């Protein structure tokens, strides 16, 4: 289903036959003269007339009046898009998040690449997020969860020092909560490029493991740090633990596969990397390292076969460049 904007929908709908009065009403709606549109469309009792009257009501904030017509099941796809979008906006305005979400989920199934649908969905989640944040700040300001949430917000904003401070506050209040040490470790890695930060982060990942010895991701992070610190033996050990804790952890399988390639244990490397590529078929990292494992094992033909998969994965994401080039008026180079 190609993306269709509301303006295009309206233009399509208006192109169909209508009475002179109704047509004037549609025109008034299109130019944003809602008072005139309401007056003119109130005499049109066709499904289309009723729908546009409801769209007019919704556009002027009169959702209750518009609701019956907006919720009607229109056969026309464009009309359905417009009315359901309007209804979801009403539900968002009413803070009836679940109903808005249900409407938009259904719309996204039918119009998966429509920018208005995607925008409205993003807006819904933003509003819901803001509402939830406001509630937690109001009702439990001293909770460690407020510090945790603040830290996560700072992380998103790239303010890693502030994130680190908030994670530390959260940990002081609730030292046994899972995942806090892990998030603090990650924030420490993001905060500074200094080699010393590696050790500080490793301590946090180790602390996370004390709380949850089966945390494969923390083991993986420690392995990465040991690798950078020039301690491949310790890194390898941690990767084995990570894979043991979670045999379906693609990143850990890839890292372990790479370590095995370095040790020339190609049989086991191929086993690990094949599994990673199977678990995460879109992972260029898994497929690339599988290709190199076969190459280094002397199986160049097999490596070339895997390379074909990698070539496919490496093709630019569909539309990414071409759509941009269209916008700046230049065709992609052949």
């Amino acid at each position, binding site marked *: 289903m190609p993306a269709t904007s509301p303006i295009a929908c309206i233009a399509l709908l208006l192109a169909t036959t209508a009475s002179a009065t109704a047509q004037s009403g549609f025109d008034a709606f299109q130019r944003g003269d809602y008072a005139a549109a309401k007056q003119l469309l109130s005499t049109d009792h066709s499904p289309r007339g009723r729908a546009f009257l409801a769209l007019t009501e919704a556009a002027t904030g009169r959702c209750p009046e518009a609701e019956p017509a907006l919720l009607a099941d229109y056969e026309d796809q464009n009309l359905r898009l417009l009315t359901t979008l309007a209804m979801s906006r009403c539900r968002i305005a009413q803070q009836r998040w679940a109903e808005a979400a249900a409407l938009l989920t259904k719309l996204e199934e039918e119009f998966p690449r429509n920018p208005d649908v995607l925008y409205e969905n993003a807006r819904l989640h933003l509003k819901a997020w803001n509402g939830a944040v406001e509630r937690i700040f109001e009702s439990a300001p001293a909770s460690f969860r407020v510090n945790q949430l603040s830290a996560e917000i700072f992380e998103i*904003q*790239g303010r*890693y020092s502030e994130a680190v401070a908030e994670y530390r506050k959260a940990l002081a209040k609730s030292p046994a909560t899972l995942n806090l040490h892990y998030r603090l470790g990650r924030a420490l890695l993001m905060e*500074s*490029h*200094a*080699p010393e930060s590696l050790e500080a982060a490793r301590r946090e990942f180790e602390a996370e493991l004390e709380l949850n010895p089966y945390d494969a991701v923390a083991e993986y992070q420690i392995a990465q740090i040991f*690798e*950078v610190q*020039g301690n*491949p033996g310790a890194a390898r050990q941690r990767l084995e633990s990570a894979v043991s804790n979670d045999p379906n952890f693609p990143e850990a399988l*890839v890292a372990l596969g*790479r370590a095995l390639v*370095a040790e020339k244990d190609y049989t086991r490397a191929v086993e690990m990397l094949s599994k990673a590529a199977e678990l995460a078929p879109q*992972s*260029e*990292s*898994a*497929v*690339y*390292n599988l*290709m*190199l494992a076969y*190459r*280094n094992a002397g199986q160049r033909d097999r*490596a*070339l076969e895997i*390379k074909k998969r*990698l*070539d496919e994965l*490496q093709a*630019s994401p569909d539309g990414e*460049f071409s759509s*941009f*080039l269209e916008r*700046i*008026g*230049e065709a*992609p*180079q052949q």
Partner: protein
Amino acid sequence: MRRALLALCLVATAAAQSVNVAGDVGLTDVIPNGGDHSKTWIIETTGSGAAWIDYDNDDDLDAFLVSGEGGTNRLYRNDRGKFAEVTAQAGLGSEGWGQGVCAGDFDNDGYTDLFVTYWGQNRLYRNLDGERFAEIAESSGLAQIRVRYNTGCAFLDYDNDGDLDLFVANYLKFDFETTPRPGDNPYCYYRNLPTVCGPRGLPFDRNLLYRNDGDKGFADVSESSGIAAPARNYALGVITGDWNDDGFTDLYVACDRTPSILYINQRDGTFEDEALLRGAALDASGEALSGMGVAAGDYNGDGTADLFRTNFSDERSTLYRNRGDGDFDESTVAAGLGKNTRYVGWGTGFLDIDNDGRTDLLLVNGHVFPEVERLNTDIHYRQRAILYHNQGDGEFADLGDQAGPGLSEPHAARGLALGDYDNDGQVDALVNSQNEAPALLKFAAPSENHWISLHLEGVRSNRSAIGAKVWVTSAGRTQYASVRGGGSYLSQSDLRLHFGLEKADTVDVEVHWPRGLRQQFGQLDAGGTHRLVESPR
């Protein structure tokens, strides 16, 4: 504990003290290159290169620096260690968005010529008897019919016919009219800051190969040679080398935000990009990094050339170890090069800073965006250089501040050329930074190790001997190097080869000339430059 102390002493001993002597020797002109506090266009971020060439054949190196818009490229003649600006009298005055430079004697007349790349028309400067240059791009078939964003370049003899051909990397398609401005779209931000747009989101362009047809000039063979494919890379730094040791020169091209290219010479006038399968396109985790500059050298003494590529901040610079057949294993972390991730790396080169017979590694840095200062992080626009000392066990040690004040100076560095400008046996570094006077880093080594410099001259092969391979044996140890076109970031280092010899007084040398001749030179004395001429047989 004792061992640890010993290791520390060794590193300290190796810590050649770097000093920036540019101001003392006359390299004082500021080279303009885009905005200094903010930039609007990507063209402001990529310039420019530097070169060491001996244009007047007086056996010392002259300095050439490429300028961005608002100034001219500059040639400085070396007069016994002091530099005199001779741009105008040499006929090299030229304005525009200059990018890269490469050098080679394309007409085999015994004088080194220059090629300078531009956003716009490139310039080929023919050296006229070592006194001045004539710009002959158009009459040589190198004029371009549209504006191109030419970046790295390298002379090479890809068809082994005895004259130098020319490779020119192209970054992307850019113009001031249609390119979006900072903040215009998601490709125009860095860490939530509106910055110049690109390279992602801007159209690719194709690389170029020009075949030298002697008196007929250069012929554009980009399409027929396969160089024009795949045209899905943002190409910057380029270096030549025979990675698979088949006697034909290949090319490595560092690419920004896209896989880097390894053009393997198919020995029939064509090239294929084999970087992916050969393991030199991506990093070990399969990511295409932001390749800028590139160096080639035998860091582990196994007789093959390895590759080193500089990348963006939050990425590691990448070391690719040659497995001996032109296949590579990424060995960055194993070689101790994985810790510095706050720098944006540009110019780079292998050099033996303490003449201990093991090649060390220098890289110069500087962020792309001046706006990065607003972020209050540990990433800055002007950044220090890094010197990695080769420990001899496959690992490097970052000398950090031990390497002296010259390397600690923060610059928005781009081009880097290596060469011993005062012939004192110590390789020096010429750095072209944005909107600054160049830096000339001298390394005062504490050691008394010996050295030798080899100036190769082709007779049947191209006169610059680009593509020649050299093995130097002294005291039971053999070192390998090759004469290379291009290299570093859009720069050209001295075409002479420098070898540290530790305490050896003499060396035996074997040269494999590009056209196939193998020649031995016995018992050459350490402590000077030797001219090795290809036998005409």
